[in-house]
């Protein structure tokens, strides 16, 4: 689950996130983590596109998304989102993920503070089938709890379809969310990510270069951001995903919010590794 972000002015939390960031970077670089599988072919939401495919992590795989970073700029403000995440293929065709979204933002107005927020997301994805003459279908759900001066809890459900044709795959995603907030209002919150929205619909197309372990893709999404009557936000993005080694992959993307109050651009970058000795079932 990528970049659930929640901007609330809070110097305390900003300091907390600053102290947490080196820890997470250290974790990412820990030598106890040996490489990663992380198949370039199996895309995840936010890495690099918001629209993902219907392939879950394979059974018993354990993957750490090290540095999914998203930098957004609009109307002079900037936001840096970072969500380290652990994903596990816990059952056949089923993965669960736990992520810690961290957002650091600067305001466009001179008298405002910077802000930050830290949260927790738990998500699951279940593939209903394997692609045949039928597309691959998957369903997912997530719960996000995001901390700031107010706390937001959001529950989402998602449906995914993937159709593969020679050379290209087409993915369709549709997600709906419900939420609660401790202050009972959306008015003060600004969200830039793709998850905190009432609904999201998108289509993506990607092309695979199997001999190079490279995938490139593009998407068009529409979402209704949280907040009072913000209107539909149309976005488009393009990105690539590359298998670095048998257990590691890199991805990056760029995109534009074409409409809506957060009209602007964003870039994403990420890496994932498969954790070593994730499971020792018969010892």
């Amino acid at each position, binding site marked *: 689950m990528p970049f659930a972000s929640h901007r609330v002015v809070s110097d305390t939390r900003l300091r907390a996130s600053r102290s947490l960031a080196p820890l997470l970077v250290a974790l990412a670089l820990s030598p106890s983590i040996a490489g990663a599988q992380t198949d370039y072919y199996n895309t995840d939401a936010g890495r690099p596109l918001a629209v993902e495919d219907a392939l879950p992590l394979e059974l018993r795989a354990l993957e750490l998304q090290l540095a999914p970073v998203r930098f957004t700029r609009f109307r002079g403000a900037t936001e840096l989102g970072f969500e380290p995440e652990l994903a596990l293929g816990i059952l056949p065709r089923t993965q669960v993920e736990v992520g810690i979204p961290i957002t650091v933002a600067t305001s466009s107005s001179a008298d405002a503070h910077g802000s930050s927020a830290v949260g927790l997301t738990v998500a699951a994805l279940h593939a209903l089938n394997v692609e045949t003459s*039928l597309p691959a279908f998957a369903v997912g759900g997530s719960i996000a709890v995001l901390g700031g001066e107010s706390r937001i809890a959001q529950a989402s459900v998602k449906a995914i*379809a993937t159709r*593969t044709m020679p050379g290209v795959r087409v993915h369709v995603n549709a997600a709906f969310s419900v939420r609660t907030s401790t202050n009972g209002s959306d008015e003060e919150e600004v969200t830039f990510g793709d998850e905190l929205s009432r609904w999201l619909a998108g289509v993506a197309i990607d092309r695979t270069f199997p001999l190079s372990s490279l995938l490139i893709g593009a998407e068009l999404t529409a979402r209704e951001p949280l907040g009072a009557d913000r209107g539909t936000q149309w976005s488009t993005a393009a990105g690539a995903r590359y298998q670095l080694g048998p257990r590691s992959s890199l991805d990056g993307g760029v995109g534009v919010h074409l409409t809506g109050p957060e009209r602007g651009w964003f870039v994403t970058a990420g890496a994932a590794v498969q954790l070593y000795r994730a499971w020792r079932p018969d010892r």
Partner: protein
Amino acid sequence: MSARTRIVCPLTALALLASVLPGRAEAQWVTTAEQMYLQAPHNWVFRDRYPAADRLFNAFDYGHAILYELLWTRPDAPASLLETIEYDHLTTRVLKRPPRLPLEERAIAVRYAQLAPEALLMFEWAHLLHRQIYDVLADARLSPEARDAEVARLLAYYRSRPDLAFSARPKSMALMQEQPYSLAFRTRYPKFNGLIWGYHWMQVGLYEPLVVYGTAVERSAGVLATVDRFWLMLSDPPRTMPHVMPMTAAVAPTFAARYPEAAIVFDNLHSMHDVISDILANPAVPRERKRAEILRAARLYRDDSSYVMPVAAWRTMATEMGIENMGGPAVNIPPTLPTPTVTYGAVMTHDDSTGKMTGFKHGSAVGGAHSGHH
């Protein structure tokens, strides 16, 4: 935000989703799951120690995948599509500059993967076993006893997926080459068929130097010699290629003696590769029957009761088929390729209880030990 927009956008996504649905009534709902390889300290050791050989295996995966894809999607194409165009592409480009990583076969054999994902996943599961045993045998940190234990653990992990695992009981060659659809591929595409047999020779043959030799230097030299012999097989196709399916017990006898269960699994794997080629290549199998025939063959190769023969008979059968017809040994490799004693693609019949050769169903002897058979 109007209520209409709130409804229309998600519905548009759902409409797009529906648009990718096929209209065909025979759509299959398949739920076979992928599974991670067994995590262990020896993961990817072979790749690190013998990168050239490892990369060739990646190229082999491409060859298998593109073969099935073209057989399924271009049934009316001239034989030259595989025998010339794709063969040349494979041998002059893909094998010469092999991919650095294992391939995503679903991205290459797109339509074939949709036709029979169950079979594709069976192959992937067995290929993982292949690679993980290379890792174990290439890991110099492991004692011989530790290697045995690790191979046993890999086999147990492999068997933990009975929906994907090939049987560890030897199967009669009749299952591979005496079915109504048999021989179509080797007859129409002898070069490509020989290339696949060359792949299979190296895939089982490479175990032998890793098992036979004790020092790192000897092993490296042995692996190099095995790879060199594979290249020599491509020098004058199909004459220089294996003339029958390479059997593990013949090509890698030390490995097969130490790890018979793995050797049998690999022979069954390689047999089913040939079976699927025949099913796809044989126009007598209607297109609407291809999937059913593939799944039937897959079921027969998974079960422990169909076409089985004793392990001793399997060893005898491998010997009687003749190592000289399979590309030769994988260690102590003679300077020249052996002279086959049967015609290319010959089908020998065997007594299933003893493995003794009883005659020819296709092809004939051209000399040597097989000259007395008809």
